[in-house]
């Protein structure tokens, strides 16, 4: 554990009026800057030129199947939780070309897509999102094969974290031990503090690259009051989680419950629309599309996000392995919270709540988990009847 003194020397004060200095420092170092901004009634991630582009004074109200932007009664820059976008759209983009091929005498020639990602700084990365990025690192970099394009994008990313000052209605990072304060995995971390007379950020470095930027900004070091104020911000957020999920023995719980009747119940509501997988910051599945021009001189393969909620996803000759909504929802949730642990040594869920908010019918992964857990402990009622009934 760092001592108070060490923290003091690591953290600086960035006044709200100085926020653009950070943008300038990043731009100077060749970073393309992306961050949150308001578009189409939501806070999304897009190019941002200065702090004026950020969602100043907005917050989001979230619940199952519900997302609304409302005005805050202050000028908080990061006074919202998370929107429908996650950083995977930059690190693991929705559509990428893998290679191109051209016909030549006797055959064809394959040219891999060049790998030269832009240096990109992400502004306002939440702790749950850092965990999501680290989970995708395990998927694409941690196995016997390496996704070289992902690796290059990842190495060229500069993460400016934001310690959450506002818990969303569907947030449960405390349950998943992924937030609300970023502990590592960032280059710089901000904590936004709004007091009666003062609006500032506590800024700390989490990497050499971050420390270099921080020192170039020549800011005042943070004192004990500022450190305590920042600590209060995240404590308050942690105390206001919209949801909770009991992860105790969750892998075995799900492994025991492949035949739980609750899957039928949720399948009656699930539209298999795949929204949850699109907004999930860790869902990594893709498919490929081989296309050619009309003359057949040029062909290419595109990789695009896919979802285990589609019938095509598990298609093998003769049909889909998971034709029912029941089996597809079960696959998604059992993977996210259970099999993921065997595959990658971590849960696939970071508690960001996006799948709950963006589900058109408000299916709630925390509620579904609770229902399965309670079906095991509740007085032996319907479980046996249901088993007999089918």
């Amino acid at each position, binding site marked *: 554990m760092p001592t108070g003194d060490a923290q003091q020397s690591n953290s600086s004060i960035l006044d709200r009026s100085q926020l653009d200095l950070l943008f300038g420092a990043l731009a100077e170092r060749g970073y393309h800057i992306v961050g949150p901004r308001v578009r189409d009634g939501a806070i999304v991630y897009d190019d941002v030129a200065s702090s004026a582009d950020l969602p100043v004074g907005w917050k989001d109200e979230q619940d199952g199947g519900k997302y609304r932007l409302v005005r805050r009664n202050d000028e908080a820059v990061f006074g919202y939780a998370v929107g429908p976008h996650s950083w995977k759209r930059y690190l693991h983009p929705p559509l990428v070309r*893998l*290679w191109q*091929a051209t*016909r030549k005498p*006797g*055959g*064809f*020639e*394959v040219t*891999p897509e060049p790998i030269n990602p832009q240096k990109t700084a992400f502004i306002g990365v939440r702790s749950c999102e850092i965990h999501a990025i680290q989970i995708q690192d395990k*998927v*694409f970099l941690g*196995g*016997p*094969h*390496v*996704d*070289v394009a992902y*690796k290059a994008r990842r190495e060229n990313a500069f993460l400016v974290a934001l310690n959450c000052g506002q818990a969303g209605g569907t947030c449960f990072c405390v349950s998943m031990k992924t937030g609300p304060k970023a502990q590592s995995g960032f280059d710089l971390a901000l904590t936004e503090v709004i007091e009666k007379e003062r609006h500032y950020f506590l800024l700390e470095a989490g990497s050499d690259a971050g420390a270099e930027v921080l020192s170039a900004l020549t800011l005042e070091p943070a004192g004990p009051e500022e450190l305590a104020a920042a600590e209060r911000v995240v404590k308050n957020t942690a105390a206001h989680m919209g949801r909770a999920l009991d992860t105790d023995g969750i892998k075995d719980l799900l*492994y025991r419950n*492949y*035949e739980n009747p609750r899957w039928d119940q949720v399948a009656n509501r699930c539209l298999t629309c795949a929204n949850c997988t699109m907004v999930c910051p860790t869902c*990594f*599945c*893709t*498919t*490929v599309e*081989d296309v*050619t021009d009309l003359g*057949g001189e040029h*062909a290419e*393969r595109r*990789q695009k996000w*896919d979802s*285990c909620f589609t019938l095509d*996803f*598990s*298609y*093998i*000759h003769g049909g889909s*392995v*998971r*034709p*029912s909504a*029941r*089996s597809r929802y079960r*696959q998604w949730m*059992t*993977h996210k919270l*259970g*099999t993921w642990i*065997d*595959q990658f040594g971590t849960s696939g869920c970071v508690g960001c709540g996006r799948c709950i908010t963006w589900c058109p019918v408000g299916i709630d992964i925390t509620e579904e988990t609770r229902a399965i857990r309670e079906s095991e402990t509740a007085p032996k009622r319907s479980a046996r009847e249901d088993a007999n009934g089918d």
Partner: protein
Amino acid sequence: MSATPINPLVPEPWKVQRVHRDTADTFTMELESAGGKRELPFAAGQFNMLYVYGVGEVPISISGNPTKPSSIVHTTREVGPVTSALRKLKPSDHLGLRGPFGVGWPVVEARGADVVIVAGGIGLAPLRPALYQLLAARNYYGKVVLLYGTRTPADILFRKELQNWHSRFDLEVHVTVDRAMGNWNGNVGVVTTLIPRAPFDPHSTVAMVCGPEVMMRFTVQELEKRGVGLENIYLSMERNMKCAAGFCGHCQFGPAFICRDGPVFRYDHVQPLMAVREV
């Protein structure tokens, strides 16, 4: 390592040496590298991703001889647009190849034991490399038994080779068909009916099984009845595959990625999920 890492998602150019039809809907193709003489060492049971220019890509298990990796052999059934296009390729035509991928049969681990190979239909193709390897090191094994079932006599794969194997004294070959015409004088019935009287010592046997999932389930039941330990039974599983490198998520079977952790699995490792529908 500072060298450019190999990109497992980009196909390499290979070219067709020979294609021949095995049965009405099944064909075998031999491939050689189009990028200069190159061997592709593989383990029995592994698969490659084959790409037909402008059409698409499919996973196909390798059916050739692992002790002769200069030529890569694939046997497949024509079931979709890509396999149809593959079948139409002619000698010296090019195709794309990625691989080999996956974990193969426990051929080396089975040394000292009897080996029983149970194949259903096209399931014989991924088992043939194991058989080649067993025969190349025949002295290391006890009895070696091949039990093979197809729909009709016309669907029998590798007919000539089967006859050669049948005439060997160090290999037991039993073939059965689901339905037969008048000129068939062999076994009739599903492949599991061959298991009760097959000559192997169940307490010292490694079983390698490949075929439709339902056939594999019943095969395991019969092997278990004979007393073969579940930890000595191996299956080759099939799921949708796109990347073959563990990135795309399609081939998940519970905690396993078939492309990376399989396609060959020890039965007791997948047993709980084999009983669940639509996993």
